[in-house]
């Protein structure tokens, strides 16, 4: 799987295949051994590193040897979906809402046929213990709703279609 990694204002690509990581043309073996709630041992080409990990809204906060890094990671499929205009970060005239992350649908806040304004809550999805409200990116008429509360969804799944989109 190819990943786009954002760190320190730069973007780098990482390719992960079966415990082998390719990072900016460099190949290395990579394994992660969790040690507790937020702690792990990262092994890169046999060299061990103590790391502390936190999930953040934007991605991951990684602390190692006195330094803290804010890292965002996006896989290839998510990027393609995002660039096509699906998901949370879609354009304002998005014709649909897609799951920005794997998780559990907690609530559906709209009905089919309902008019929504930009910023109106559409659904609540729970992932990583956090509830995330997916908001309408633009105004429009809600079409088909593809999920029910309690349903597990995968990243990129279609959640809500729009009947029509109001021009701005």
């Amino acid at each position, binding site marked *: *799987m190819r*990943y786009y*990694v954002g*760190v*320190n204002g730069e973007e*780098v690509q*990482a390719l*992960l295949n079966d415990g082998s*990581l390719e*990072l900016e043309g460099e190949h*290395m073996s*990579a*394994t*992660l*051994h*969790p040690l*507790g*709630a*937020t*702690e*792990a041992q*990262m092994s*890169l080409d046999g060299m061990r*590193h103590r*790391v*502390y*990990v*936190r*999930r953040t809204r934007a*991605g*991951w906060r*990684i*602390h*190692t*040897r*006195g*330094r*803290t*890094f804010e*890292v*965002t*990671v996006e*896989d290839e499929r998510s990027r393609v979906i995002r660039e096509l205009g699906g998901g949370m970060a879609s354009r304002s005239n998005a014709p649909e809402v897609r799951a920005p*992350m*794997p*998780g*559990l649908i907690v609530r559906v806040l709209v009905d089919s046929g309902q008019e929504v304004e930009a910023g109106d809550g559409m659904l609540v999805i*729970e*992932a*990583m*213990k*956090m509830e995330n409200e997916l908001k309408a990116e633009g105004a429009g008429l809600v079409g088909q709703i593809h999920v029910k509360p*309690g349903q*597990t969804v*995968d*990243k990129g799944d279609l959640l809500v279609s729009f009947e029509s989109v109001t021009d701005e």
Partner: protein
Amino acid sequence: MFDTVLIANRGEIALRVIRACREEGLRSVAVYSSPDQEAPHVLAADQAVALGGTTPAESYLSEGLLLKAAADTGAGAIHPGYGFLAESAKFARSVEDANLTFIGPPSAAIEEMGDKPRARARMVTAGVPVVPGSGELSSIASAREVAEEIGFPIMIKAAGGGGGKGMHVVQNPADLKAAFERAQREAEGAFGDGRIYLERFLLRPRHIEIQILADENRILHLGERECSIQRRHQKLIEEAPSPCVDEVLRERLGAVAVQAAEAVGYLGAGTVEFLLEGSDFFFLEMNTRIQVEHPVTEMITGVDLVREQLRIALGYPALNGLDAPSPRGHALECRISAEDPQKDFLPSVGRVESLEIPTGPGIRWDGGIRVGFEVGLHYDPLLGKLIVHAENRAQAIERMRVALEELWIDGLATTQAYHLSVLGEEDFQAGALSIEYVQEHPELLRLVPPDLQKVAIATAVLCENHLDHEASLGVSDNKKVVGRQLSPWVQAGREW
């Protein structure tokens, strides 16, 4: 005499005083504001008194509440720590008037040193060198006269000012008139007080200070500390001894510091601060209290300065009447504050989620936090001080680096990484310091070691991959994907 000490402070220094009280066989009384109800110093003390309130003015600065707490608990002495009321002559006098012991110098000495122009005049009389300068200047002609006498560059300052406003460096005589007029206008505009004066401008001076201990019969010094690594007059890294002070200079500085303390009838622990330019030094001010950076002196001398404060207040001779010990090795201190160096040292707030304190030979942590403690905006952002002692400066730097790499405070941004960047920098390693160091090395604010960034990227990618992997496997098993009982990390990081 007293057997109970009220500590009118919070955080690491309150804990430090409580420890010294325990060793001396004294009972300790903590005081606390509402948000500090479960703060470490409250939990550590023998007794604790609620002051209520949130802001310092409502709590740790409330003289009436502190005196009442002392009376209610039978405390015969008050230790002010540093900050808050530590240098309030008025508070020290109230404590004296209540027939309690103020653990510090007499209120008169605090007053003498607290008024900066008066302290300066007093030091001149006592033969202590101060930065050459003028009194209040009435005209450009008199400014020119003084400037020619002390030599350029000079610094023009507002008499009623502070915070850098109305301060101008003048490099040569031709620029004096314009700078004089501009400073006058600015001083008038900023402070409603157009009075200005001038001083010789010190070129990249170093901050050197001398630790003093005074009892009823003698005043002795325990050598110097260097605190040149500072930002906006806030010290970040301190060390002892200074890499630029030799035995001869140490004795000169020590003798002058003792003279300064004698001039005001000093008692207890105190610090005389100097600016050093080349081999010339100038009195800056005297801090009439224990200082944040006192541990570096403790590490190289073996003297417990806080316990000495208590013992001198109890009437014992300083150091039990012995001579000051010869220093051994080198000590460094890094102040770990809840400030984000990447965001111009903006204070960060949050809950301490986990805490790993480094340990090992020659490593000391004077901290004021614990897991679960909320760090707010009302008080000083100092979380703790990491202190190391080693055989020499190079080894102390290595020891500090390793200790900083082990330290982990989860939940808020700290100055930890910045310290690591300074320790690795050439000028710091060479001991080529000045109070301009932080400004002169802006690259250190954003320095990122590439090898550690690689580790962070790999970790994040593996965590993200695991999330995706688990999600695709776990559609039939809701609990596995969104298992409520598991922490985010366990969900993310379980091995696969």
